[in-house]
């Protein structure tokens, strides 16, 4: 039902998420933002069970900000990803596990861009491209075929558009719009929402 995708380039990460907030068969919101800003250069994309997403993501968000306040510098994306995974793992075998699937995208001064894939069983993998949701079944092979490690920003956006076109064509559900953002050394940039409606 929900869809997340991330593509990492040599000096940027491109991420997109759909904008639908649904409750059983009803779309309750068409402009819902599933990206949570952890710091100036880290975004957490979160989908999954209704309340768990916001609760968990806000918890991680506040803790990352608390770290910055206490220590004077920000957590790196790798550290933030491992912190998130550790929390998921801690709650996994408790009575109230968090049923969330995450993508963490960030830019580090030393390590460069990073995209981290995490799922509800608290697996963590750093990947050049990743997707969550039913849509992932349809789009991962497109990413496999056309991705190259040194792709430019325009090529990455084209690749993203190819994936969304495939979703529009073959996915049974209607996902009308996607929020797209790009993270590079200058921070987080909002990009035009895709797909663009008829003018």
């Amino acid at each position: 039902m929900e869809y997340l995708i991330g593509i990492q380039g040599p000096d940027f990460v491109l991420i997109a998420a759909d904008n639908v907030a649904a409750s059983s068969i009803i779309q309750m919101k068409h402009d819902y933002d599933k990206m949570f800003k952890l710091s100036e250069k880290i975004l957490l994309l979160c989908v999954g069970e209704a309340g768990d997403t916001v609760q968990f993501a806000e918890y991680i968000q506040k803790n990352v900000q608390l770290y910055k306040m206490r220590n004077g510098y920000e957590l790196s994306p790798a550290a933030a990803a491992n912190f998130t995974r550790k929390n998921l793992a801690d709650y996994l075998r408790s009575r109230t596990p968090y049923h969330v699937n995450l993508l963490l995208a960030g830019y580090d001064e030393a390590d460069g861009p990073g995209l981290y894939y995490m799922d509800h069983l608290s697996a963590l993998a750093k990947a050049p491209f990743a997707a969550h949701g039913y849509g992932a079944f349809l789009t991962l092979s497109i990413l496999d075929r056309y991705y190259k490690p040194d792709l430019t920003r325009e090529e990455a956006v084209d690749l993203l558009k190819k994936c969304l076109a495939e979703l529009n064509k073959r996915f049974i559900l209607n996902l009308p719009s996607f929020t797209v953002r790009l993270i590079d050394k200058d921070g987080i940039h909002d990009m035009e929402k895709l797909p663009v409606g008829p003018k």
Partner: protein
Amino acid sequence: MFHCLPRSSVCENDSPPLFSQWSAPFLRSFMPEDSTHLSGGGIHGEAFSTRLPGRGGLSPLEFYMPIAEYLTESPINFGQTSLRSAPTNLLNIDHLHPSLPSISLPPPTPFPISPSVPLPFTLSHGTTTLGFAFQGGVIAAADTRSSCSGLVACPASPKVLPIHSHLVGTTSGTSADCALWKRILARELRLYQLRHRRRLSTGGAAKLLSHMLHPFKGTELCVAATLCGWDGDDEKDEEPITDKYGNISTNQVTSSGSNNQSTSTAAAASQPLISFTTQQVVESRSRICGPRVIYVCSDGLRLKGELFSVGSGSPYAYSILDSSVYWGMSVQEATAVAREAVFRATYRDAYSGNNVDLYHVTAKGWRRRERENLKEEYYREKERERKRVAERKAEKNKEKFNV
């Protein structure tokens, strides 16, 4: 032994309180110091309290929540007649794929939803409630039928409950849970207002309710509320608002009494006043203050928007609202659309019906429209339809004669 308690011992609390979790020391607090421990479900199995030293006890952010002790135990141990419990809808669906949302429509055949305690009757959540914002404020409307699978338990239950002077909440789900949590929310908002000398915003109230309900996730608590309110200006207009505060609340009380007699004249009289104040308010800081509609669900969903409908009749209501609601509509139009939406939903949905309640929230507070029985509307509709059919027949006959 204690058949006759002397008054002094009761006042001095010599005997241990009957329900120890209700007394002051057993507080659940949500302070920033607790950030490393998420406030989820009593995982460590004890109720704890943190008190800031030198603050005289409670700090403003602490509030009390009734956490039953059984939440710290595994549900398997608590009151189950057999270890093999009926599987839930939720568990089955999660098994398919992790990102599939849980379905919350009422089951087609009544069966117990995995009770940890055997239920005396099957639960079913049927209702139609809606709330939307427009230029003239917020409209909150709901039907009044409380159903219990096949039985109409109460044909006249209020599903839109006022929380404070500028906030009403529509309720859907289990009636008892909704009534209780609305009261708890009202209490916490009033305490906040007394401590901070300003009303908590609708977004803040929604977040508070959402966090209060979070520990109960996974239990059978079911509350789906739409908070419809008006966020007012702070300090600058604080005096006028608090001056009118006493007046407005008493006005509401008296006018809702007289509302039963004549709604149309009351609506006409207060119409120009409302539009004047909204104009004033809109001119100054329209981003901070204004109408707000926020949907809060006990499974944790919290959505801010402009139009929401909740309940088993919500799809029918959505289809009416989506085509007719726009920001610039007048109050009469908005009232008519809300009424129509609830009426259509009660027409099609078996679990909604009887009357429709309608509340209108503006900068001056909420105003309640007289409860209307939809039976008459149904008969009027039938009458209109019959007339239309008769007219069409007459026209056809005319054409025949002309030709």
